[in-house]
């Protein structure tokens, strides 16, 4: 019997390490600290593990460094080489599970009907209705119902009413991967629309009349403007390089009344490398302020965030101020285009600044429009060059907006972080697969749970107490001066609690809101009792007429998600247990 005392080291300081027992389950790595009186647990979902690294032997044992996709970094020291080796190999296998993802195991003891209904909780098609569609300018088409037109789009597309079928088909043929121009957001107030697509296959000189007609149809669908913007979110140089490969960008001479614009957001590879550099900055042990700021600058991360934000602001202004429509694309139209369109939607429409609205937006602009979550998040062992923090950047832009508009959003930072966690956790089916068709093939709606009802149930935690819906349909006009962009410590150093403010204003206010709900309830109770005593109200009568409990939100437990769930296979593989099992 070996006495395994695994140490969990502090990432930054030489503080006394925590000693405890490491468990590997089918889905989680769990470290149970046994050195303190209160049982402290660290749960890491295998899907979150980005890299596992074995380091050479130190004085205390074999170091094993684990970095997670949610930026949790843990350094273990394991006393025995064999166990270290075991853990290492198990984690490598478990974190890259081929096609056997957590979502297919996850079973929170819910009714099958509830599970199925859960998938209907967010219906992105409903959002078109909310925008007032179909109307005299726009309609929904089922031309893509079998994914024949475009395999990476979803099946219902918004297109201008005046676009003929052959125009649509022709345009799709002229666009990279068939990703034809389709409606992303319609702004009722201005008639301006945001449409999205992929780059045209224009090469050096090719043109396509149907595509030109398609753009004209989009332009015509907005009676308030004589022109439309075509925004290529790539740097001009990249777009030009694509021409040599038979792709490229619109030649403004061929399209009538378009204003063409590059906005210069870098590609997924630049973003991946930038994040890598940013994380290196975060990992520095006791850096000087200069090291940190220079590192932050050299990573280029905030420059990229600003570029995305600038593009989003450009779109929102075009639609709201110039009442113009905008067509947006990058190369394939599933990364930068998704970022920019969804950001512009948030700026233009307060619905997306609500808890439910953000779900709809993510469902609509990211999931159903074919953002390749499986590849970008590296859910399964695949091409590392396809991994890129595109969605993380979108959330960071939203966070930046929340910093500038503390009363403008119904949700708080925790909501963004929890969504980010689940994008990578594969606990729910929503972010699995690269497009709608793939998800249908995987039959995710039959086999997995949707994350949205789960988040909705816990919404009390994600409320921004300062939210004022009175801001109404005000278009947000954030400043994009560099000094308004801050390093998102809550995301990238989320697990380094020492760096966070020791007292959280948000938590404080959430507690007050909770107390307020209870207080209001008590007040009504007391008032009623007093009334009864005064003889104003009859006793039984009040009991009957009491409103049902559900009108008041019961306090929601703030339990960690991982503790709420049950795993189908309860087998816990204890890898380093012996001493620990006695202690627990």
């Amino acid at each position, binding site marked *: 019997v070996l006495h395994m005392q695994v140490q969990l080291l502090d990432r*930054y300081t030489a503080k006394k390490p925590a000693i405890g027992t490491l468990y590997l389950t089918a889905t989680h790595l769990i470290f149970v600290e046994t050195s303190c009186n209160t049982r402290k647990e660290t749960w890491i979902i295998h899907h979150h593990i980005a890299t596992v690294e074995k380091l050479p032997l130190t004085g205390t044992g074999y170091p094993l460094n684990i970095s997670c996709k949610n930026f949790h970094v843990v350094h273990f020291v394991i006393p025995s080489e064999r166990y270290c080796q075991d853990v290492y190999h198990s984690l490598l296998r478990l974190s890259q599970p081929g096609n056997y993802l957590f979502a297919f195991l996850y079973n929170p003891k819910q009714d099958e009907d509830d599970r199925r209904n859960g998938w209907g909780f967010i219906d992105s098609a409903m959002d078109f209705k909310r925008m007032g569609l179909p109307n005299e300018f726009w309609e929904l088409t089922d031309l893509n119902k079998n994914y024949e037109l475009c395999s990476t789009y979803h099946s219902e597309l918004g297109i201008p009413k005046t676009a003929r079928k052959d125009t649509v088909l022709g345009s799709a043929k002229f666009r990279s991967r068939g990703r034809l121009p389709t409606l992303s957001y319609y702004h009722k107030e201005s008639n301006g629309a945001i449409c999205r697509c992929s780059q045209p296959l224009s090469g050096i000189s090719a043109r396509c009349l149907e595509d030109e007609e398609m753009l004209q149809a989009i332009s015509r669908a907005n009676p308030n403007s004589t022109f439309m913007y075509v925004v290529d979110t790539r740097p001009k140089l990249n777009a030009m390089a694509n021409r040599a490969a038979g792709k490229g960008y619109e030649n403004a001479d061929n399209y009538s009344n378009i204003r063409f614009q590059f906005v210069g957001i870098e590609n997924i590879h630049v973003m991946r490398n930038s994040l890598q550099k940013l994380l290196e900055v*975060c990992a520095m042990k006791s*850096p*000087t*302020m*200069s*090291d*940190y*700021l*220079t590192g*932050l*600058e050299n990573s*280029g991360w*905030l*420059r990229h965030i*600003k570029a995305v934000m600038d593009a989003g602001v450009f779109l929102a202004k075009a639609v709201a101020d110039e009442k113009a429509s905008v067509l947006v694309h990058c190369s394939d139209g599933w990364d930068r285009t998704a970022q920019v369109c969804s950001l512009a939607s948030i700026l233009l429409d307060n619905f997306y600044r609500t808890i439910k609205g953000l779900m709809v937006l993510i469902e609509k602009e990211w999931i159903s429009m074919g953002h390749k979550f499986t590849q970008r998040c590296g859910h399964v062992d695949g091409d590392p060059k396809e991994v890129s923090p595109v969605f993380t950047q979108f959330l960071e832009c939203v966070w930046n907006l929340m910093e*500038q*508009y*503390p*009363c*403008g959003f119904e949700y708080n930072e925790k909501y963004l972080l929890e969504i980010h966690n689940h994008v990578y956790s594969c606990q729910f089916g929503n972010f699995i697969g690269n497009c709608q068709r793939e998800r249908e093939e995987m039959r995710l709606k039959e086999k997995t749970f949707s994350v949205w009802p789960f988040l909705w149930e816990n919404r009390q935690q994600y409320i921004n*107490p*300062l939210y*004022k819906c009175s801001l109404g349909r005000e278009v947000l006009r954030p*400043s994009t*001066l*560099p*000094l*308004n*962009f*801050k*390093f998102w*410590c809550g995301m990238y*150093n989320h697990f*380094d609690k*020492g*760096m*966070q*403010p*020791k*007292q*959280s*204003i948000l938590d*404080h*206010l959430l507690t*007050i*809101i909770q*107390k*307020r709900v209870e*207080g*209001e309830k*008590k*007040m009504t109770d*007391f*008032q009623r*009792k*007093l009334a*009864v*005593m005064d003889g104003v109200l009859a006793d039984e009568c009040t009991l009957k007429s009491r409103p049902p409990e559900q009108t008041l939100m019961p306090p929601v437990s703030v339990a960690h998600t991982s503790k709420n769930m049950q795993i189908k296979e309860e087998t816990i593989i204890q890898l380093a247990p012996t001493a620990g099992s006695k202690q627990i």
Partner: protein
Amino acid sequence: MEFAELIKTPRVDGVVLRRPFQPTVEGTLCLTGHHLILSSRQDNTEELWLLHANIDCIEKRFVGTLGTIIVKCKDLRVIQLDIPGMEECLNIASSIEALSTLDSVSLMYPFFYRPMFEVIEDGWNSFLPEDSFKDLESMTDEWRLSDVNQDYCVCASYPPLVAVPKDVDDDTLRKAAAFRHAGRFPVLSYYHKKNGMVMMRSGQPLTGTNGRRCKEDEKLINATLRAGKRGYIIDTRTIAVAQQAKARGGGFESEANYPQWRRIHKAIERSSVLQESLIKLVEACNDQSHNMDRWLSKLEASNWQTHVKEILTTACLAAQCIDREGASVLVHGTEGTDSTLQVTSLAQIILDPTCRTIRGFQALVEREWLQAGHPFQQRCVQSAYGNGSSVKVRCEAPVFLLFLDCVWQILRQFPCSFQFSEHFLVLLFEHAYASQFGTFLGNSAAERAKLKLSQKTVSLWSWVNRPQEAQRLSNPLYEANSLVIWPSVAPQSLLLWEGVFLRWNRSSRCLDEAYEEMVHIIEYNKELQNKVNSLRRQLAELETDDPLQHTE
């Protein structure tokens, strides 16, 4: 001298005032002895009421006969005045220049200001050394209040009364003073009630190149150690800088002569370096043409955040020595009037919950800055725009501002542990640089006594401690926290103090709104809980009164 001589043109009509994020105002510009006033004369409201003393520098520009004066203020605001007529513009400009750089302190506005409010409690008497010593006496009898400096002869920058170890007589103090920079012999700064450890501060010892020593100085500081205990000397300078100081007669305590003390050197920069940083930082914040890389690189190059980190780190070290190591500490740099005070005052914020209250913080500023002889007049004569002014000896430096910045950092990390809000810190920044109150005039207690400030001017504390003002400056999130609060000094945890540096460079509408909403939520909940409690009481009374009803 009459102010009228300096005011060549007292009034100009048709002046246009431009400020970022505020509507343009056209109105009449008036110059008085102490104010620049611009009024559109609508609804009798003044659009601008600016103290000349708040003006850091001005720039003139002409396009034809339309002149423009850019007024850059010490509170970092920049405003533009378009003045029709070249002569008027030149007159106004030269008057502002003269009036904003008055030589004589006694011509400053505090000597003319008459309060529009009733002084309930005279701030000049709110924080007397005698009173704070009474608090000390209630905790320990190891210290005494010495009046050795009654006539400011032993140390010009010390107050008349200082706390010293009981067993050390005045004669020893005089001899120790002769061995310390500018006579600043070690005195008590803070007594840590929890374990009886103390923090002292002083000027550097005058060891010089040949290692002079002073038995009295050694005796004085050793008298603060318990038997068998060692203490820490925190020298705010790097060892290299401290070495260089020897050549100019200064130096540091050698191990040989101070065997009971362990010396630690830190790297807080000299005040002239801090001033450079402020200028660079404000320039970076005001230039809106920067791209992201340029902004970050300028922010880095300003080194401002580096100073914040260094000062906080040193303060944490001092606090750690006292609270965690259970050792007494002596802090000094060169003069003992700048970096020393930053460290001793911040350490108290960390250690002592009293310092985190509105009154306690005033007492701290009074004790550790004003009484301790921080030369406010010199340091605050210019702010970030005062580059290349007519001042002969450059001695301005944002030492106090850096202290406030550090307090803000701790406040941000412990938003519920301070009785005051950020507004109080911003207010102190403004008043340190330009004020209608006399509190920050003069460089030392001696100067303030000579200027008779307490008789001739109003104290800032008189105003701040009125109930409505204290209410405005209080932190709605405050919940008394008696613990030591350890701030994080990781770069990720230290932010640019937007409330000061970006204050004029962005619209504050959304942030103000959020603050009001927060206050509203908290106030509403308080009222609600009160109501609930009173209903509960009513109910309980009724229930005991009338047992028949008690059948539920």
